C-alpha cells in the first residue's frame, strides 16, 4: 500500500472508495470535486463515537486521514473509559477493514449458497415474506434478535416489532449477568446491576469476577482498580481474588485464593460468618450464616480456615471494601445463591451505597435473560418462527451452548435474515444477508450506564456496499406494511433521522458540541437501598457428566470476548498474557492431571463432555485447580486467515460445543459451569505458538518488586542519591528536549492494550502462527509475564518491553551504515531506507526488541487502507523497532510551533501511553524538571532493566509493590 494513495481515496466517496483504497501507487492525483472543509488531505480529523465491541460502551475518537479511519483512541471526556481503550477496542479497526467483509446483499440460491444480489431484490424478498405473515395474522412468527441495543436503535426496532406485531425483540448477549440481577432483586429488591466504585474501595474482594478481562466493563474497572490499588504517595489498596484458575485478574491480586470450583458462595458465607462471630458485622447477619460451618467450608473449598479468617479481618476493616462476584465458576446453577452471599457480604461490611451504587446502573440490566433466548430457540425448533432477523454482532450458533441445538432450530426457520457484515457461524444459515454498516460507519447511540449516553456518528463513508440496519429495516417494514415514507408507525426516512430525533431532548440544541464531546454525560446519585437478610444457602452447582471427570471452566477471554472480536488478526497475534500463546486455542490442564495423562504442552488432547468432544493442544498450568480444566472462549478464524496465518483446518476450538443448555433456575441465566469432562491423550501434537521462552527471570531482575513497607519507607525518605555513571566519554548533550518514558510495573495489569495500540499506530504487520512460534513476531512492544515464588501460586509481574532508547545503545555503533544512531532528542533512531539488514544491531540489543522483516509482510486489502500515512511501511530485509512514536513527537512539536510555545507536558502521547487503562506509562521531556516523567524518573521505585550492562536506557521502570503474605 502506498501511503500517498490517500490523496486519491479522499476524493472518491462511497462504494468506489473501497476499490480506490486498494489500488497500487498511481501517478495521477485527483482533487476534490467539492471542497470538504472537514477533511484536509494530510491533516487528521477526529470523530467521536462509541465502541460496540462489547456492551461496556467505551467512548472512542477515530482519527480520520484523507477520509479513512486509521487509528482509534479512547474518548478522554467519556466517563466510562476516560481516554483508555482495551485491546479489543483498538483492534476493532480490523473488523472495519476486514478482508472478508461482505461486499453487498446476498441471497441464498438453493444449494448454490449465498449469491450477490441487489438491495431492492433482497429487501423485497424479506418484505414480501413479512407482508404475507402480517396479512396472515402470523406476526408472532417474526423474531428479531440483536446485541444489546439500549439506545435509539433498540427503541426504533421495538417500534418496528410492534408495527409488524412480531414477537418481542430478544437482545442476545452471551454474558448477561442474570444472576447478579436476580440476587439484587432478592437482597436489595432492585432488578439492576449497580456501578461498583472500585476507586473508592480500600479492599476489593473478588469472587471470580474477571473485571480486568471481560466482567461488565473491563476498561472502566481496570482503570478504577488501578486508582485504588496502585501505589501512590505511600497508600495502596488491597485486592484479594478467589478463583480456581489463575486468570489475568487473579494474577493481579495481592492474594490469590485458589478454591475448589463452585465453592465461592460457601466461602463468602464463611467469611461473613467469621465477621459476625468476631463482631465485625451486624448481628442480624447471623441469620444469613446460621447454617454455615467455617471448618466444613474450609474443607470443601480447599481454602484454609486461617485464610478465611484473615480475609474476613482484612475485608471487615476496609473503609470501605467491595466484594464482587462473577466469572465461570460462580456462574453455575447456583449462581444466584452465590451472588446473594456476596450481596450480604457487601451489606454486612456497609459497602452498599458507598462502593456498590445503585442508580448509575449498568446497561447489562436490560439484556434479555438466557431463558428467553432458550424459549425462542424452542419456538424456532417447533416451527413457530418463520422469519428470524439477526442483527450484527449476534452469532448464537457460535456463542450459545451446543446443548441448545440452536443450529438445528435455525435450520427450521423459513427465512433467516442476517445483518452480519463479516460472515460468521450464524450467517451461514442465512437466506438473506443485508450487510449492515460497521459501527464506525454508523449513526446511533449507546448508554453504558444510567446518565451516560454516548453518541455514535459515521467516522468515515462505508468501505463496502453496506447499509445501516435501521435504514434497511425501516424500508422493509414500510414495504411490508404497504405505507410510504412519512406515514404509518415507522415513518422515518432513515435511522439517522430517528436517532437525532431521540437526541433532541438530551442535547439542548447543541448537536455539534454533543457529537464533539461524544455524547451527553450526567452523574446519577447513588440510590439508597436496604438489604433484606435471607438465609444464605451454599448450594453446589449441578454438573452433568460423570462425577469422576474434571469441571470444565469455559472462560471468556480478554482478547476475543464471546468471539465477536476474533475476526481481528491483531488480537489473534497479541499473546494471551498468562500463557503468552497466540493464534491457536488450548486446553489448560493442571500439572497434576497432566502428569496422570502424561501430556506435555502441545500434545493434542480430546476433551469429552455429555454434549460432544473437542480436540485441543494442551497447555500445562501449575496454577490451575486439579479438579478443573479450562478452555478459553471465542477462538475462531475467518476465511482469509486460513491458510495465510494458520493451518488450513484446525477444526472447532469452541468450548461452547461442550456445554449443555443448563440455566440457573433462580435467574434464568446460562450456567457456564455446568459439565464435567474427561480428557484423553490423542498421541498427536499441535505445538502452541508461545512467544515467551520462559516465565522464570533466572535472577536477572528484569521485573523488580519491593515490599509495601519498604516502598512506604522509601516514599517518605525519597530516593537515595545516585552516583554518576563512570565513563571515559563526554556526557551526551541535548540541545532541545530529551524524550523519556516511565512504566509503572505496579500499575500494569497486563491487558495488552498497549501492544495492540502500537500495532495499529505503527503499521506493524501480522506474521501468522508459524512465524510467531519461531521468534519472528513483529510487535514493537511486548508484554512479558514473569512468575516468582512457588510455581503453583506465583507472584506475577507484568513488564511491558519496548525499545529502551539507550543513551549508550549497543545497537548503534555496530551498524555499518548509521541506520541506527542517536538523535539529538535522545531517541534511538532507526532509518529504514538506510538499513542493509546485517542484523548486527538485533544481536547486540540485550533486550531483543529489534524486529527484522524476514519476509515482505503484506496487508491484505482493504486492511492496507488502515495503514498510518505518517509511518513508513517497511520493506523486507530491514530492521525495525519502537520509535517512541516519533511521528507523534513531530506532530506535537508542530502544534506547539503553530501556537508559538514550547512543547508542554502532555502535548505528546505515545500510542501505548494513550490507550493504557491504568496509566502505567508516562512519556515526556526528561530535561523539563516539571514534567511528570522527570518526577517519576526520580521516584524511589525507579530502576532500569539490565542496569548493570550500562546501556543507560531512556525508559525507566517503577518497581511493583507487593504485599507480603497476610500483610
Amino acid at each position, binding site marked *: 500500500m*502506498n*501511503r*500517498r494513495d490517500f*490523496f486519491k481515496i479522499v*476524493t*472518491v466517496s462511497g462504494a468506489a472508495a473501497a476499490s480506490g483504497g486498494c489500488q497500487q501507487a498511481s*501517478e*495521477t*492525483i*485527483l*482533487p*476534490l*470535486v*467539492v*471542497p470538504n472543509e472537514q477533511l*484536509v*488531505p*494530510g*491533516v487528521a480529523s477526529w470523530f467521536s463515537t462509541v465502541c460496540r465491541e462489547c456492551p461496556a460502551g467505551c467512548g472512542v475518537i477515530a482519527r480520520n486521514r484523507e477520509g479513512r479511519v486509521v487509528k482509534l483512541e479512547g474518548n478522554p471526556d467519556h466517563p466510562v473509559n476516560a481516554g483508555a481503550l482495551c485491546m479489543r477496542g483498538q483492534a476493532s479497526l480490523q473488523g472495519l477493514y476486514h478482508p472478508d467483509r461482505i461486499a453487498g446483499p446476498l441471497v441464498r440460491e438453493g444449494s448454490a449458497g449465498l449469491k450477490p444480489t441487489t438491495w431492492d431484490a433482497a429487501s423485497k424478498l424479506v418484505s414480501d415474506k413479512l407482508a404475507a405473515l402480517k396479512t396472515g395474522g402470523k406476526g408472532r412468527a417474526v423474531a428479531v434478535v440483536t446485541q444489546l441495543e439500549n439506545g435509539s436503535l433498540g427503541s426504533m426496532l421495538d417500534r418496528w416489532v410492534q408495527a409488524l406485531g412480531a414477537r418481542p425483540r430478544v437482545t442476545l448477549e452471551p454474558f448477561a449477568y442474570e444472576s447478579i440481577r436476580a440476587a439484587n432483586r432478592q437482597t436489595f429488591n432492585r432488578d439492576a446491576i449497580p456501578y461498583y466504585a472500585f476507586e473508592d474501595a480500600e479492599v476489593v474482594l473478588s469472587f471470580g469476577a474477571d473485571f480486568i478481562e471481560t466482567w461488565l466493563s473491563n476498561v472502566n474497572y481496570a482503570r478504577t482498580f488501578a486508582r485504588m490499588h496502585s501505589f501512590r504517595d505511600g497508600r495502596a489498596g488491597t485486592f484479594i481474588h478467589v478463583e480456581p484458575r489463575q486468570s489475568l485478574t487473579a494474577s493481579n491480586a495481592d492474594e490469590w485464593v485458589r478454591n475448589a470450583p463452585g465453592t465461592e458462595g460457601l466461602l463468602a458465607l464463611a467469611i461473613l460468618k467469621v465477621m459476625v462471630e468476631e463482631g465485625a458485622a451486624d448481628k442480624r447477619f447471623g441469620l444469613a450464616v446460621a447454617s454455615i460451618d467455617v471448618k466444613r467450608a474450609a474443607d470443601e473449598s480447599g481454602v484454609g480456615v486461617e485464610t478465611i479468617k484473615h480475609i474476613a479481618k482484612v475485608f471487615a476493616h476496609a473503609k470501605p471494601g467491595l466484594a464482587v462476584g462473577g466469572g465461570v465458576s460462580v456462574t453455575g446453577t447456583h449462581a444466584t445463591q452465590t451472588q446473594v452471599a456476596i450481596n450480604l457480604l457487601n451489606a454486612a461490611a456497609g459497602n452498599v451505597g458507598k462502593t456498590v451504587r445503585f442508580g448509575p446502573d449498568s446497561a447489562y440490566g436490560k439484556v434479555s435473560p438466557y431463558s428467553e433466548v432458550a424459549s425462542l430457540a424452542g419456538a424456532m425448533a417447533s416451527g413457530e418462527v418463520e422469519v428470524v432477523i439477526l442483527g450484527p454482532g449476534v452469532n448464537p450458533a457460535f456463542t450459545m451452548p451446543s446443548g441448545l441445538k440452536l443450529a438445528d432450530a435455525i435450520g427450521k426457520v423459513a427465512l433467516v435474515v442476517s445483518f452480519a457484515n463479516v460472515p460468521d457461524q450464524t450467517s451461514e444459515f442465512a437466506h438473506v444477508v443485508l450487510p449492515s454498516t460497521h459501527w464506525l460507519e454508523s449513526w446511533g447511540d449507546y448508554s453504558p450506564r444510567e446518565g451516560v449516553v454516548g453518541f455514535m456518528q459515521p467516522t468515515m463513508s462505508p468501505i463496502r456496499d453496506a447499509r445501516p440496519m435501521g435504514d434497511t429495516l425501516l424500508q422493509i417494514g414500510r414495504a411490508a406494511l404497504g405505507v410510504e415514507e412519512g406515514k404509518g408507525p415507522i415513518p422515518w426516512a432513515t435511522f439517522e433521522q430517528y436517532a437525532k430525533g431521540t437526541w433532541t431532548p438530551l442535547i439542548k440544541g447543541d448537536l455539534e458540541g454533543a457529537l464533539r464531546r461524544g455524547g451527553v454525560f450526567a452523574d446519577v446519585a447513588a440510590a439508597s437501598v436496604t438489604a433484606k437478610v435471607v438465609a444464605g444457602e451454599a448450594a453446589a452447582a449441578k454438573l452433568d457428566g460423570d462425577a469422576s471427570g474434571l469441571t470444565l471452566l469455559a472462560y471468556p477471554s480478554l482478547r476475543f470476548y464471546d468471539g465477536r472480536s476474533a475476526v481481528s488478526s491483531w488480537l489473534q497475534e497479541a499473546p494471551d498474557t498468562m500463557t503468552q500463546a497466540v493464534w491457536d486455542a488450548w486446553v489448560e490442564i493442571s500439572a497434576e492431571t497432566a502428569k496422570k495423562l502424561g501430556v506435555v504442552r502441545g500434545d493434542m488432547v480430546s476433551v469429552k463432555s455429555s454434549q460432544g468432544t473437542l480436540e485441543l493442544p494442551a497447555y500445562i498450568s501449575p496454577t490451575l485447580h486439579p479438579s478443573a480444566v479450562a478452555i478459553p472462549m471465542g477462538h475462531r478464524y475467518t476465511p482469509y486467515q486460513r491458510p495465510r496465518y494458520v493451518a488450513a483446518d484446525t477444526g472447532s476450538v469452541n468450548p461452547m460445543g461442550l456445554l449443555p443448555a443448563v440455566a440457573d433456575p433462580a435467574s434464568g441465566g446460562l450456567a457456564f459451569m455446568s459439565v464435567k469432562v474427561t480428557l484423553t491423550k490423542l498421541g498427536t501434537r499441535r505445538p502452541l505458538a508461545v512467544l515467551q521462552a520462559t516465565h522464570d527471570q533466572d535472577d536477572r531482575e528484569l521485573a523488580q518488586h519491593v515490599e509495601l513497607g519498604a516502598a512506604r519507607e522509601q516514599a517518605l525518605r525519597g530516593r537515595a542519591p545516585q552516583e554518576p555513571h563512570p565513563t571515559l566519554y563526554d556526557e551526551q548533550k541535548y540541545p532541545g528536549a530529551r524524550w523519556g518514558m516511565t512504566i509503572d510495573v505496579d500499575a500494569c495489569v497486563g491487558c495488552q492494550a498497549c501492544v495492540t495500540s502500537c500495532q495499529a499506530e505503527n503499521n506493524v504487520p501480522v506474521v501468522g502462527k508459524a512465524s510467531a512460534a519461531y521468534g519472528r513476531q513483529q510487535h514493537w512492544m511486548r508484554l512479558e509475564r514473569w512468575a516468582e515464588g512457588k510455581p503453583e501460586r506465583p507472584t506475577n509481574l507484568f513488564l511491558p518491553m519496548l525499545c529502551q532508547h539507550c543513551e549508550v545503545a549497543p545497537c548503534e555503533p555496530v551498524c555499518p551504515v*548509521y541506520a541506527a*544512531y542517536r*538523535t*539529538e*532528542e535522545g*531517541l534511538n*533512531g*532507526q*532509518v*529504514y*531506507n*538506510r538499513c542493509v539488514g546485517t542484523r548486527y544491531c538485533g544481536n547486540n540489543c540485550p533486550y531483543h526488541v529489534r524486529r527484522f522483516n524476514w519476509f515482505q509482510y503484506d496487508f491484505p486489502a482493504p486492511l492496507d487502507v488502515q495503514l498510518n500515512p*505518517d*509511518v*513508513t*511501511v517497511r520493506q523486507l530485509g530491514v530492521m525495525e523497532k519502537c*520509535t517512541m512514536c*516519533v*511521528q507523534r513527537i*513531530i506532530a506535537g512539536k*508542530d502544534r506547539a*510551533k*503553530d501556537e508559538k510555545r514550547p512543547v508542554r507536558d502532555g502535548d505528546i502521547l505515545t500510542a501505548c501511553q494513550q490507550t493504557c487503562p491504568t496509566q502505567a506509562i508516562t512519556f515526556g521531556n526528561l530535561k523539563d524538571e516539571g514534567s511528570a516523567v522527570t518526577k517519576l524518573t526520580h521516584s524511589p521505585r525507579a530502576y532500569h532493566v539490565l542496569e548493570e550492562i550500562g546501556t543507560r536506557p531512556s525508559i525507566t521502570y517503577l518497581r511493583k509493590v507487593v504485599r507480603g503474605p497476610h500483610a
Partner: protein
Amino acid sequence: MMAKAGVGALGAALLAVLVFLAISSWSRQPAAAAKPSAQPINFPHSVHVGTYKIDCQYCHSDARRSEYAGLPSVERCMGCHKIAAADKPEIKKLAEYHAKKESIPWVRVNKLPEFTYFPHKAHIRAGLKCQGCHGPVETMTTYAADTGPSLTVDLLNLVGFRPAPPPLTMGWCVECHREQNAKNARHAPLDCVICHH
C-alpha cells in the same frame, strides 16, 4: 636521480589535484530544464501566477496547514472560470469535469519516495518561497520539474566530482537546510528520523 624522481612525482600529483579541482568545480552547474508534463487540461501556471499574480496558496491552499500542498477543487477552479475565459476549449474541458462531478486526473510531477516524509506546512511556516523548490513556476506554460536522483549525477559523484544535486533529492534538501542554518541562523532539522520514520 632519486631526488629528481621524487620532485617529479610530487609535481605530477599536485598537477593532478589542480586539474581535478578545476573540473570538479566546473561540473557544479544547475540541473537541465525538464520536459513539460502532459496534463489532462493544459493549465498554464505562467498565466495564473505570472500574468494574474494569483498567490500559489490561493489554489494550493493546504500547503500552510498540511503535509500536502493540495490541489484546488474543481469547484474552486470554476469559481473564477464560470465567467473568466469560459469560452476557451481548455476551460470547456474543465466545465465538463465539473458538470460530470468528476475530479481532474492531474498527472503527478513532484513525488518523493515512500520512506520520506515531507511536510509543506513547516516550510511555509518558515517563510520559504514555493519557487525555491518548485522552480520558476510563474514562467512555466506547463508545470515541469526534473527531480529525483539521476544516474549521471550519481556517476559524477562516484568519480569524485561534486555536481549540484538535482531538486528533491536528499543531498539537495540537506544542502538547503545546512545553508539556512549557517546563513540565516535557522534551526532546519538535520536529524535523519525527522524525514525518515
